[in-house]
Protein backbone atom coordinates (compact mmCIF):
# COMPACT_ATOMS: atom_id res chain seq x y z
CA UNK A 1 0.00 0.00 0.00
CA UNK A 2 1.23 3.48 -0.87
CA UNK A 3 -0.06 6.19 1.47
CA UNK A 4 0.47 9.80 0.53
CA UNK A 5 -0.47 12.19 3.32
CA UNK A 6 -0.66 15.93 2.87
CA UNK A 7 2.48 16.09 0.76
CA UNK A 8 3.87 19.49 -0.10
CA UNK A 9 6.79 20.22 -2.35
CA UNK A 10 8.27 23.44 -3.69
CA UNK A 11 11.02 24.23 -6.16
CA UNK A 12 12.21 27.60 -4.93
CA UNK A 13 9.23 29.95 -4.91
CA UNK A 14 7.07 27.59 -6.93
CA UNK A 15 4.86 25.25 -4.91
CA UNK A 16 4.43 22.23 -7.14
CA UNK A 17 2.52 19.93 -4.77
CA UNK A 18 0.06 21.65 -2.47
CA UNK A 19 -1.00 19.02 0.01
CA UNK A 20 -1.67 15.78 -1.84
CA UNK A 21 -3.62 13.01 -0.08
CA UNK A 22 -3.87 9.68 -1.84
CA UNK A 23 -3.80 6.00 -1.00
CA UNK A 24 -3.10 3.30 -3.53
CA UNK A 25 -4.10 -0.22 -2.55
CA UNK A 26 -2.34 -3.41 -3.55
CA UNK A 27 -3.54 -4.51 -7.00
CA UNK A 28 -5.01 -1.15 -7.84
CA UNK A 29 -4.38 0.66 -11.12
CA UNK A 30 -4.43 4.41 -10.63
CA UNK A 31 -3.94 6.81 -13.50
CA UNK A 32 -3.08 10.45 -13.06
CA UNK A 33 -4.08 12.98 -15.66
CA UNK A 34 -3.65 16.73 -15.73
CA UNK A 35 -2.10 19.64 -17.54
CA UNK A 36 1.59 20.29 -18.02
CA UNK A 37 3.34 21.46 -14.87
CA UNK A 38 0.58 20.25 -12.54
CA UNK A 39 3.06 18.20 -10.48
CA UNK A 40 2.40 14.67 -11.74
CA UNK A 41 6.01 13.73 -12.43
CA UNK A 42 7.14 15.38 -9.24
CA UNK A 43 4.76 13.23 -7.21
CA UNK A 44 6.12 10.02 -8.76
CA UNK A 45 9.74 11.01 -8.10
CA UNK A 46 8.80 11.85 -4.50
CA UNK A 47 7.27 8.40 -4.06
CA UNK A 48 10.54 6.63 -4.78
CA UNK A 49 12.61 9.23 -2.95
CA UNK A 50 14.38 10.72 -5.95
CA UNK A 51 12.98 14.05 -4.79
CA UNK A 52 12.60 15.20 -1.20
CA UNK A 53 9.34 16.60 0.16
CA UNK A 54 8.79 19.70 2.27
CA UNK A 55 5.86 18.51 4.37
CA UNK A 56 3.61 15.49 4.89
CA UNK A 57 4.64 11.87 4.44
CA UNK A 58 4.72 9.07 1.94
CA UNK A 59 4.56 5.57 3.37
CA UNK A 60 5.20 2.50 1.24
CA UNK A 61 4.27 -0.80 2.90
CA UNK A 62 4.84 0.76 6.30
CA UNK A 63 8.15 2.43 5.41
CA UNK A 64 8.24 6.21 5.60
CA UNK A 65 10.10 7.10 2.40
CA UNK A 66 11.48 10.43 3.56
CA UNK A 67 12.20 9.56 7.17
CA UNK A 68 15.82 9.79 8.31
CA UNK A 69 17.51 6.43 8.12
CA UNK A 70 15.28 4.95 5.44
CA UNK A 71 17.37 2.85 3.07
CA UNK A 72 16.20 4.35 -0.21
CA UNK A 73 18.22 1.95 -2.33
CA UNK A 74 16.44 -0.93 -0.68
CA UNK A 75 13.05 0.73 -0.91
CA UNK A 76 13.49 1.41 -4.62
CA UNK A 77 13.76 -2.30 -5.31
CA UNK A 78 10.04 -2.61 -4.74
CA UNK A 79 9.15 0.54 -6.70
CA UNK A 80 9.75 0.08 -10.42
CA UNK A 81 9.63 3.33 -12.38
CA UNK A 82 9.69 4.05 -16.10
CA UNK A 83 10.16 7.59 -17.38
CA UNK A 84 9.07 9.55 -20.39
CA UNK A 85 12.63 9.93 -21.70
CA UNK A 86 14.34 6.85 -23.08
CA UNK A 87 17.06 5.94 -20.64
CA UNK A 88 18.56 2.67 -21.69
CA UNK A 89 22.19 2.16 -20.64
CA UNK A 90 23.65 2.67 -24.13
CA UNK A 91 26.87 0.71 -23.54
CA UNK A 92 25.03 -2.48 -22.62
CA UNK A 93 23.00 -4.87 -24.75
CA UNK A 94 19.30 -5.22 -24.05
CA UNK A 95 19.94 -8.37 -22.05
CA UNK A 96 22.73 -6.73 -20.05
CA UNK A 97 20.56 -3.68 -19.41
CA UNK A 98 17.97 -5.88 -17.75
CA UNK A 99 20.48 -8.08 -15.90
CA UNK A 100 22.62 -5.32 -14.38
CA UNK A 101 20.54 -4.33 -11.36
CA UNK A 102 19.46 -7.87 -10.38
CA UNK A 103 23.12 -8.93 -10.35
CA UNK A 104 24.61 -5.83 -8.70
CA UNK A 105 21.74 -4.76 -6.46
CA UNK A 106 20.00 -8.01 -5.58
CA UNK A 107 23.15 -10.10 -5.74
CA UNK A 108 21.63 -12.69 -8.06
CA UNK A 109 23.90 -15.05 -9.96
CA UNK A 110 24.45 -14.34 -13.66
CA UNK A 111 22.44 -17.43 -14.60
CA UNK A 112 19.56 -16.52 -12.33
CA UNK A 113 19.49 -12.92 -13.57
CA UNK A 114 19.71 -14.00 -17.19
CA UNK A 115 16.79 -16.40 -16.82
CA UNK A 116 14.72 -13.63 -15.26
CA UNK A 117 15.79 -11.09 -17.89
CA UNK A 118 14.94 -13.41 -20.78
CA UNK A 119 11.58 -14.11 -19.18
CA UNK A 120 10.72 -10.43 -18.75
CA UNK A 121 12.02 -9.43 -22.17
CA UNK A 122 10.01 -12.19 -23.79
CA UNK A 123 7.03 -11.03 -21.79
CA UNK A 124 7.22 -7.54 -23.30
CA UNK A 125 7.86 -8.97 -26.77
CA UNK A 126 11.60 -8.43 -27.02
CA UNK A 127 12.69 -12.04 -26.79
CA UNK A 128 14.48 -11.73 -30.13
CA UNK A 129 16.41 -8.56 -29.23
CA UNK A 130 18.58 -9.86 -26.39
CA UNK A 131 21.96 -9.15 -27.99
CA UNK A 132 20.97 -5.86 -29.60
CA UNK A 133 22.26 -2.50 -28.40
CA UNK A 134 19.55 0.03 -27.43
CA UNK A 135 20.57 2.51 -30.14
CA UNK A 136 19.41 -0.04 -32.72
CA UNK A 137 15.89 -0.14 -31.33
CA UNK A 138 12.82 1.98 -31.87
CA UNK A 139 11.50 4.20 -29.11
CA UNK A 140 8.67 1.77 -28.44
CA UNK A 141 11.11 -1.09 -28.06
CA UNK A 142 13.30 0.99 -25.76
CA UNK A 143 10.35 1.78 -23.52
CA UNK A 144 9.34 -1.88 -23.40
CA UNK A 145 12.92 -2.73 -22.50
CA UNK A 146 12.79 -0.17 -19.69
CA UNK A 147 9.61 -1.84 -18.45
CA UNK A 148 11.27 -5.27 -18.52
CA UNK A 149 14.30 -3.83 -16.73
CA UNK A 150 12.10 -2.53 -13.92
CA UNK A 151 10.09 -5.78 -13.76
CA UNK A 152 13.25 -7.87 -13.45
CA UNK A 153 13.66 -6.45 -9.94
CA UNK A 154 10.30 -8.07 -9.04
CA UNK A 155 8.86 -4.78 -7.79
CA UNK A 156 5.64 -4.66 -5.81
CA UNK A 157 4.62 -1.40 -7.50
CA UNK A 158 5.17 0.09 -10.91
CA UNK A 159 5.18 3.82 -11.58
CA UNK A 160 4.88 5.01 -15.17
CA UNK A 161 5.51 8.63 -16.08
CA UNK A 162 4.05 9.38 -19.51
CA UNK A 163 5.93 6.47 -21.03
CA UNK A 164 4.33 7.02 -24.43
CA UNK A 165 4.75 10.81 -24.70
CA UNK A 166 8.06 10.72 -26.53
CA UNK A 167 6.92 8.07 -29.00
CA UNK A 168 5.82 8.33 -32.61
CA UNK A 169 2.06 7.76 -32.77
CA UNK A 170 2.38 4.37 -34.45
CA UNK A 171 4.55 3.08 -31.57
CA UNK A 172 2.25 4.19 -28.75
CA UNK A 173 -0.01 1.17 -29.13
CA UNK A 174 2.62 -1.50 -28.47
CA UNK A 175 3.68 0.15 -25.22
CA UNK A 176 0.11 0.71 -24.01
CA UNK A 177 -0.60 -2.96 -24.78
CA UNK A 178 2.29 -3.88 -22.50
CA UNK A 179 0.84 -1.71 -19.73
CA UNK A 180 -2.62 -3.24 -20.23
CA UNK A 181 -1.08 -6.69 -19.95
CA UNK A 182 0.59 -5.76 -16.64
CA UNK A 183 -2.66 -4.29 -15.32
CA UNK A 184 -4.56 -7.45 -16.22
CA UNK A 185 -1.96 -9.51 -14.38
CA UNK A 186 -2.75 -7.64 -11.18
CA UNK A 187 0.30 -5.38 -10.95
CA UNK A 188 -0.19 -2.37 -8.70
CA UNK A 189 0.41 0.62 -10.93
CA UNK A 190 0.37 4.39 -10.92
CA UNK A 191 0.36 5.67 -14.49
CA UNK A 192 0.71 9.30 -15.42
CA UNK A 193 -0.70 9.54 -18.91
CA UNK A 194 -2.19 11.75 -21.57
CA UNK A 195 -3.92 8.77 -23.22
CA UNK A 196 -7.50 9.23 -22.07
CA UNK A 197 -8.83 6.13 -23.80
CA UNK A 198 -6.19 4.04 -22.07
CA UNK A 199 -6.93 5.66 -18.70
CA UNK A 200 -10.61 4.92 -19.13
CA UNK A 201 -9.95 1.24 -19.95
CA UNK A 202 -7.38 0.15 -17.39
CA UNK A 203 -7.91 2.32 -14.35
CA UNK A 204 -9.62 1.44 -11.12
CA UNK A 205 -9.47 5.14 -10.31
CA UNK A 206 -8.39 8.23 -12.19
CA UNK A 207 -6.95 11.29 -10.45
CA UNK A 208 -6.97 14.74 -12.01
CA UNK A 209 -4.14 17.09 -11.01
CA UNK A 210 -4.34 20.80 -11.48
CA UNK A 211 -1.66 23.28 -10.34
CA UNK A 212 -0.36 21.04 -7.58
CA UNK A 213 -3.75 20.02 -6.26
CA UNK A 214 -5.54 16.73 -6.77
CA UNK A 215 -8.75 18.36 -7.93
CA UNK A 216 -10.77 15.19 -8.45
CA UNK A 217 -10.39 11.45 -8.04
CA UNK A 218 -13.00 8.89 -9.08
CA UNK A 219 -13.53 5.65 -10.99
CA UNK A 220 -13.10 6.29 -14.74
CA UNK A 221 -16.79 6.07 -15.68
CA UNK A 222 -17.55 8.72 -13.13
CA UNK A 223 -14.59 10.99 -13.76
CA UNK A 224 -14.94 10.95 -17.53
CA UNK A 225 -18.74 10.54 -17.58
CA UNK A 226 -19.71 13.11 -15.01
CA UNK A 227 -16.76 15.35 -14.13
CA UNK A 228 -17.49 17.75 -11.28
CA UNK A 229 -14.44 19.95 -11.10
CA UNK A 230 -14.70 22.90 -13.53
CA UNK A 231 -11.00 22.70 -14.40
CA UNK A 232 -11.41 19.01 -15.19
CA UNK A 233 -14.33 19.79 -17.49
CA UNK A 234 -12.19 22.32 -19.35
CA UNK A 235 -9.29 19.86 -19.49
CA UNK A 236 -11.44 17.03 -20.85
CA UNK A 237 -13.08 19.30 -23.41
CA UNK A 238 -9.62 20.37 -24.62
CA UNK A 239 -8.38 16.80 -25.07
CA UNK A 240 -11.19 15.85 -27.47
Amino acid sequence: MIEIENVRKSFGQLEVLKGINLTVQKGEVLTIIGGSGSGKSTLLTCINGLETIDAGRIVVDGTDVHAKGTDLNKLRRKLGIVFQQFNAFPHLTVLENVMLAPVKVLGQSKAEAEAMAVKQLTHVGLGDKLKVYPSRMSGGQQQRMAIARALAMSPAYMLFDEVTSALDPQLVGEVLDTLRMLASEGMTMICVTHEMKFAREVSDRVAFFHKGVMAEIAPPEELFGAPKDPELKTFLAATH
Partner: protein
Amino acid sequence: MFDTALTLADLGFLAQGAVMTLAVTAVSVLAGTILGVVFGVLRNQLGTYWSLPITFLLDIFRSVPLLIQLVLGNALQSIMKLGWAPFTTSCVVLSLYTAAYCTEIVRGGISAVPATTRRAARSLGMTWWQDMRYIVAPLATRVSLPAWIGLTLGVMKDSALVLWLGLIELLRASQILVTRLQEPLFILLICGAIYFIISFPIARLGGYLEKRWSND
Protein backbone atom coordinates in the same frame (compact mmCIF):
# COMPACT_ATOMS: atom_id res chain seq x y z
CA MET B 1 72.91 9.52 -46.12
CA PHE B 2 74.85 6.54 -44.80
CA ASP B 3 77.94 8.64 -44.72
CA THR B 4 77.56 9.39 -41.04
CA ALA B 5 79.61 9.33 -37.90
CA LEU B 6 76.66 8.02 -35.94
CA THR B 7 77.60 4.76 -34.28
CA LEU B 8 75.54 1.97 -32.81
CA ALA B 9 76.54 3.22 -29.37
CA ASP B 10 75.05 6.61 -30.23
CA LEU B 11 71.82 4.94 -31.24
CA GLY B 12 71.85 3.16 -27.91
CA PHE B 13 72.27 6.55 -26.25
CA LEU B 14 69.21 7.83 -28.10
CA ALA B 15 67.28 4.73 -27.07
CA GLN B 16 68.17 5.39 -23.44
CA GLY B 17 66.82 8.90 -23.88
CA ALA B 18 63.64 7.45 -25.35
CA VAL B 19 63.28 5.15 -22.34
CA MET B 20 63.60 8.16 -20.04
CA THR B 21 60.94 10.02 -22.04
CA LEU B 22 58.69 6.98 -21.79
CA ALA B 23 59.31 6.57 -18.06
CA VAL B 24 58.56 10.22 -17.24
CA THR B 25 55.48 10.14 -19.46
CA ALA B 26 54.17 6.85 -18.10
CA VAL B 27 54.53 7.87 -14.45
CA SER B 28 53.08 11.34 -15.03
CA VAL B 29 50.15 10.20 -17.14
CA LEU B 30 49.31 7.42 -14.69
CA ALA B 31 49.51 9.57 -11.59
CA GLY B 32 47.96 12.56 -13.38
CA THR B 33 45.04 10.48 -14.59
CA ILE B 34 44.33 9.03 -11.16
CA LEU B 35 44.43 12.51 -9.64
CA GLY B 36 42.41 13.87 -12.54
CA VAL B 37 39.68 11.29 -11.98
CA VAL B 38 39.56 12.07 -8.26
CA PHE B 39 39.44 15.85 -8.83
CA GLY B 40 37.02 15.49 -11.76
CA VAL B 41 34.57 13.46 -9.67
CA LEU B 42 35.01 15.85 -6.74
CA ARG B 43 34.33 18.87 -8.93
CA ASN B 44 31.21 17.19 -10.23
CA GLN B 45 29.98 16.26 -6.78
CA LEU B 46 30.76 19.54 -5.07
CA GLY B 47 29.23 21.76 -7.72
CA THR B 48 30.73 24.94 -9.16
CA TYR B 49 30.79 26.89 -5.91
CA TRP B 50 32.34 24.43 -3.48
CA SER B 51 34.90 23.18 -5.97
CA LEU B 52 36.18 26.72 -6.55
CA PRO B 53 39.44 26.12 -4.62
CA ILE B 54 40.23 23.02 -6.69
CA THR B 55 39.33 24.81 -9.90
CA PHE B 56 41.53 27.76 -9.01
CA LEU B 57 44.50 25.56 -8.13
CA LEU B 58 44.20 23.53 -11.30
CA ASP B 59 43.81 26.68 -13.40
CA ILE B 60 47.26 27.72 -12.18
CA PHE B 61 48.75 24.48 -13.40
CA ARG B 62 47.01 24.91 -16.72
CA SER B 63 48.02 28.51 -17.33
CA VAL B 64 51.63 28.79 -16.10
CA PRO B 65 54.10 27.50 -18.74
CA LEU B 66 55.38 24.06 -17.87
CA LEU B 67 59.00 25.18 -18.03
CA ILE B 68 58.38 27.72 -15.27
CA GLN B 69 56.54 25.11 -13.22
CA LEU B 70 59.49 22.72 -13.52
CA VAL B 71 62.04 25.31 -12.52
CA LEU B 72 59.92 26.63 -9.65
CA GLY B 73 59.05 23.10 -8.54
CA ASN B 74 62.71 22.22 -8.44
CA ALA B 75 63.58 25.38 -6.50
CA LEU B 76 60.75 24.68 -4.08
CA GLN B 77 61.84 21.14 -3.35
CA SER B 78 65.38 22.29 -2.67
CA ILE B 79 64.17 25.15 -0.41
CA MET B 80 62.03 22.65 1.47
CA LYS B 81 65.02 20.33 1.60
CA LEU B 82 63.04 17.42 0.21
CA GLY B 83 66.12 16.07 -1.51
CA TRP B 84 64.22 14.85 -4.53
CA ALA B 85 66.09 13.55 -7.53
CA PRO B 86 65.41 15.46 -10.79
CA PHE B 87 63.40 12.47 -11.98
CA THR B 88 61.09 12.63 -8.97
CA THR B 89 60.67 16.40 -9.23
CA SER B 90 59.96 16.11 -12.94
CA CYS B 91 57.35 13.41 -12.41
CA VAL B 92 55.63 15.32 -9.59
CA VAL B 93 55.38 18.55 -11.58
CA LEU B 94 54.30 16.80 -14.78
CA SER B 95 51.74 14.72 -12.86
CA LEU B 96 50.10 17.84 -11.46
CA TYR B 97 50.20 19.46 -14.88
CA THR B 98 48.57 16.36 -16.39
CA ALA B 99 46.05 16.17 -13.54
CA ALA B 100 44.97 19.75 -14.19
CA TYR B 101 44.03 18.94 -17.79
CA CYS B 102 42.71 15.49 -16.97
CA THR B 103 40.32 16.94 -14.38
CA GLU B 104 38.63 18.98 -17.09
CA ILE B 105 38.42 15.96 -19.37
CA VAL B 106 36.91 13.79 -16.64
CA ARG B 107 34.47 16.47 -15.56
CA GLY B 108 33.34 16.91 -19.16
CA GLY B 109 32.96 13.15 -19.58
CA ILE B 110 30.86 12.81 -16.43
CA SER B 111 28.58 15.70 -17.31
CA ALA B 112 28.06 14.18 -20.76
CA VAL B 113 26.22 11.26 -19.11
CA PRO B 114 22.55 12.28 -19.24
CA ALA B 115 20.96 12.93 -15.86
CA THR B 116 18.00 10.81 -16.97
CA THR B 117 20.25 7.78 -17.48
CA ARG B 118 21.74 8.18 -14.01
CA ARG B 119 18.29 8.67 -12.52
CA ALA B 120 17.23 5.39 -14.14
CA ALA B 121 20.17 3.62 -12.52
CA ARG B 122 19.38 5.04 -9.09
CA SER B 123 15.71 4.13 -9.52
CA LEU B 124 16.73 0.51 -9.90
CA GLY B 125 18.17 0.66 -6.40
CA MET B 126 21.78 1.18 -7.42
CA THR B 127 23.92 3.12 -4.96
CA TRP B 128 25.84 6.25 -5.95
CA TRP B 129 28.95 4.14 -6.23
CA GLN B 130 27.27 1.47 -8.40
CA ASP B 131 25.93 4.19 -10.67
CA MET B 132 29.45 5.66 -10.98
CA ARG B 133 31.06 2.29 -11.51
CA TYR B 134 28.68 0.61 -13.95
CA ILE B 135 27.02 3.49 -15.78
CA VAL B 136 28.97 6.73 -15.48
CA ALA B 137 32.51 5.32 -15.73
CA PRO B 138 32.01 3.40 -18.99
CA LEU B 139 30.01 6.15 -20.66
CA ALA B 140 32.31 8.97 -19.52
CA THR B 141 35.37 6.98 -20.63
CA ARG B 142 33.97 6.70 -24.14
CA VAL B 143 33.37 10.43 -24.33
CA SER B 144 36.72 11.38 -22.80
CA LEU B 145 38.99 8.97 -24.62
CA PRO B 146 39.95 11.13 -27.64
CA ALA B 147 40.81 14.08 -25.41
CA TRP B 148 42.74 11.83 -23.02
CA ILE B 149 44.80 10.32 -25.85
CA GLY B 150 45.53 13.86 -27.02
CA LEU B 151 46.63 14.79 -23.51
CA THR B 152 48.90 11.75 -23.24
CA LEU B 153 50.60 12.50 -26.55
CA GLY B 154 50.93 16.14 -25.53
CA VAL B 155 52.49 15.26 -22.19
CA MET B 156 54.95 12.98 -23.93
CA LYS B 157 56.15 15.85 -26.09
CA ASP B 158 56.05 18.37 -23.25
CA SER B 159 58.10 15.99 -21.11
CA ALA B 160 61.10 17.11 -23.19
CA LEU B 161 61.20 20.17 -20.93
CA VAL B 162 62.49 18.06 -18.04
CA LEU B 163 65.88 18.37 -19.72
CA TRP B 164 66.07 21.70 -17.89
CA LEU B 165 66.36 19.76 -14.65
CA GLY B 166 69.25 17.80 -16.13
CA LEU B 167 67.43 14.66 -17.16
CA ILE B 168 68.70 13.15 -20.38
CA GLU B 169 65.55 12.23 -22.22
CA LEU B 170 65.11 11.78 -25.94
CA LEU B 171 65.40 15.42 -27.02
CA ARG B 172 68.37 16.15 -24.74
CA ALA B 173 70.11 13.00 -25.95
CA SER B 174 69.64 14.19 -29.53
CA GLN B 175 71.00 17.63 -28.70
CA ILE B 176 74.11 16.11 -27.18
CA LEU B 177 74.70 14.05 -30.31
CA VAL B 178 74.07 17.04 -32.56
CA THR B 179 76.66 19.05 -30.71
CA ARG B 180 79.19 16.27 -30.91
CA LEU B 181 78.59 15.00 -34.44
CA GLN B 182 77.47 18.24 -36.12
CA GLU B 183 74.78 16.38 -38.09
CA PRO B 184 71.67 18.17 -36.85
CA LEU B 185 69.22 17.27 -39.62
CA PHE B 186 69.99 13.58 -39.65
CA ILE B 187 69.90 13.18 -35.90
CA LEU B 188 66.77 15.24 -35.42
CA LEU B 189 65.15 13.14 -38.14
CA ILE B 190 65.91 10.01 -36.13
CA CYS B 191 64.73 11.71 -32.94
CA GLY B 192 61.45 12.68 -34.61
CA ALA B 193 61.04 9.16 -35.94
CA ILE B 194 61.45 7.73 -32.43
CA TYR B 195 58.81 10.13 -31.07
CA PHE B 196 56.54 8.98 -33.85
CA ILE B 197 57.18 5.29 -33.15
CA ILE B 198 56.28 5.84 -29.48
CA SER B 199 53.17 7.90 -30.25
CA PHE B 200 51.76 5.83 -33.06
CA PRO B 201 50.62 2.82 -30.97
CA ILE B 202 48.95 5.11 -28.44
CA ALA B 203 47.08 6.97 -31.15
CA ARG B 204 46.11 3.69 -32.81
CA LEU B 205 44.92 2.20 -29.53
CA GLY B 206 42.63 5.21 -29.17
CA GLY B 207 41.30 4.71 -32.69
CA TYR B 208 40.78 1.02 -32.07
CA LEU B 209 38.86 1.53 -28.82
CA GLU B 210 36.71 4.25 -30.37
CA LYS B 211 35.79 1.93 -33.21
CA ARG B 212 35.10 -0.97 -30.89
CA TRP B 213 32.77 1.13 -28.77
CA SER B 214 30.94 2.70 -31.67
CA ASN B 215 28.71 -0.36 -32.14
CA ASP B 216 26.55 0.69 -29.22
